[in-house]
C-alpha cells in the first residue's frame, strides 16, 4: 500500500495534471472563439492570421511547442538581452497547452458556427441586427449544444496529454508514479495512475453528457 508521502505525491501530481487541463480548456475556449471568428471573417488579415495560427499549432507536436517555450525562449532572451531569467515550468505548461488547445478548439468552434443554418443570420439581419448582435445573440448560442461533444473530447485528450510536462521538470501524475515504480520496482503504481485517469475522464464524460442534454432542451 501507499505510505503517506507517496499518497501526497500522487495527489499533488494529480493536481498538476488537472490544473493544466482546466487552464488550457478555459483559455483555449476563449481564444478559440476569437481565432474561429477570424477564420470565418471576410477581413483578409484576420483570416490569414487565424489560418497561420491554426496551421502552426496543429501542425507541430505539442511537445515541441513545450520545448520552444521552456528551453528556447530563455536562450533567445539571453542572446538578445544578455540577461537570464527564472522560468516557471508551470506557467510554461499553462501557456503551451493553452496555445495548443486554442488551435484545436478554434476549428471545433468554426465548424459549429458554420453548421448553423444561414437563414438564422439572414433572419437576424432582416430584423435589424448588426453582424455582431446576430452572432452573439443568435448564432453562437445555437452552437453550444453542438460544441459539447467535441469540446469534451478535446478536454479528455488534454488531460491525458498533460503527461508531456514531465519533460520540463514538472511532476504530473504519470511522472510521479513512474518515479515510484522505478524506485521500488513495483508496477502497481501504474494501476493507481490508470484508475485516477479513468476516474477523471469519467467525470468529464458524465458532466459533458449531462450538459449536452441540458443545452439541447429546445430541440425536439
Amino acid at each position, binding site marked *: 500500500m501507499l505510505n503517506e508521502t507517496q499518497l501526497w505525491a500522487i495527489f499533488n501530481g494529480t493536481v498538476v495534471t488537472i490544473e493544466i487541463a482546466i487552464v488550457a480548456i478555459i483559455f483555449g475556449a476563449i481564444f478559440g472563439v476569437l481565432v474561429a471568428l477570424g477564420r470565418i471573417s471576410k477581413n483578409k488579415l484576420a483570416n490569414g492570421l487565424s489560418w497561420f495560427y491554426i496551421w502552426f499549432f496543429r501542425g507541430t507536436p505539442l511537445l515541441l511547442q513545450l520545448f520552444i517555450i521552456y528551453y528556447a525562449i530563455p536562450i533567445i532572451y539571453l542572446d538578445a538581452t544578455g540577461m537570464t531569467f527564472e522560468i516557471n515550468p508551470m506557467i510554461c505548461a499553462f501557456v503551451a497547452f493553452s496555445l495548443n488547445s486554442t488551435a484545436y478548439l478554434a476549428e471545433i468552434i468554426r465548424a459549429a458556427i458554420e453548421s448553423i443554418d444561414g437563414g438564422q443570420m439572414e433572419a437576424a439581419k*432582416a430584423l*435589424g441586427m448588426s453582424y455582431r448582435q446576430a452572432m452573439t*445573440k443568435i448564432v453562437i448560442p445555437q452552437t453550444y449544444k453542438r460544441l459539447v461533444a467535441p469540446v469534451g473530447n478535446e478536454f479528455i485528450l488534454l488531460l491525458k496529454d498533460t503527461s508531456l510536462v514531465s519533460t520540463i521538470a514538472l511532476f504530473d501524475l504519470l511522472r510521479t508514479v513512474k518515479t515510484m515504480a522505478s524506485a521500488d520496482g513495483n508496477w502497481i503504481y501504474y494501476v493507481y495512475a490508470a484508475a485516477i485517469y479513468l476516474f477523471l475522464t469519467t467525470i468529464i464524460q458524465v458532466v459533458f453528457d449531462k450538459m449536452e442534454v441540458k443545452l439541447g432542451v429546445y430541440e425536439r
Partner: protein
Amino acid sequence: MSMVKLVNVHKSFGNLEVLKGVNLEIQSGEVVCIIGASGSGKSTMLRCLNHLERITDGEIYIEGELTDKRENNKDLMKIDPAKVQILCTELGMVFQNFNLFPHLSVIDNVTIAPIIVKKAKKEEIEKVALDLLKEVGLSEKKDEYPSRLSGGQQQRVAIARALAMNPKIMMFDEPTSALDPELVGEVLATMRHLAEKGMTMIIVTHEIGFAREVADRVIFMDQGVICEQGTPEEVILHPQEERTKSFLNKIL
C-alpha cells in the same frame, strides 16, 4: 405615398443575371402579390430591398429615401451600416423556412429584436408581443420552443416577430411554400387580416387564389423582368402577355 421604389435594378450572381432591369413603385397601403416561375427573380428582388443581397446596378428608395445606388457592382453612394440597420427595421420580412430562432421560446423570438435593436424595455415589449401573438392566435404557446410548433404555427410566430419591430412594409417570401397543404390556410388568414388592417405588403407567392382575393396589384415576373402587372382581374383572369398565359396555364 411611395413606400418602395426600384429604378432599373439589376442583380447578377457571377455571370448569372437574375434581375435585368426592374422598375417598380409601391404605394402606402398597397398589397402587391408577385407571381412567376422559380428563378424569375421574385425572391431576389425582395432580398435586395433590405440589403440581404446587394444589387449590381440601379437605385432603391424606401419611403422616398435613396437607400442604395450602385453601378457595375460598385457603390455610387456611401452606405452607412447603421442606416441600413434602421432601414431593415422598416421592412419586416417573413421567410419561406420561417427561420425562427430555435434556442428561444416563442415570446423571446418576438421580443429579442426590439430589445437588442431598439433597446425596448423587456416588460413593455412583452406586452406588445403578447398582443401580437394573440393576433396570430398563438398566445397560449408563448413559452414553447419553436420545435414544438407545427409549420403553420411557426410561420405565424415569424409574422408576429416581424411585426414586433413595427415595420411599415411587410415582405413575404413564399410564406406558405414549405407548409403542408392543411396548414396553408391559417397562415393566409393571418396575412389577410394584416392586409385588411392596411399594412403595405409585398408577397411573393404561388397561391394564385390568395393573390386574386387579397392583392391590389399582381405582378408577373419572368426571366428577371416585370412582364405584366395590373389588378388581379387583369393579370390573372385576362392576361395579355403570352408568357403570363402559359405560366398561369401550367399552375392552374
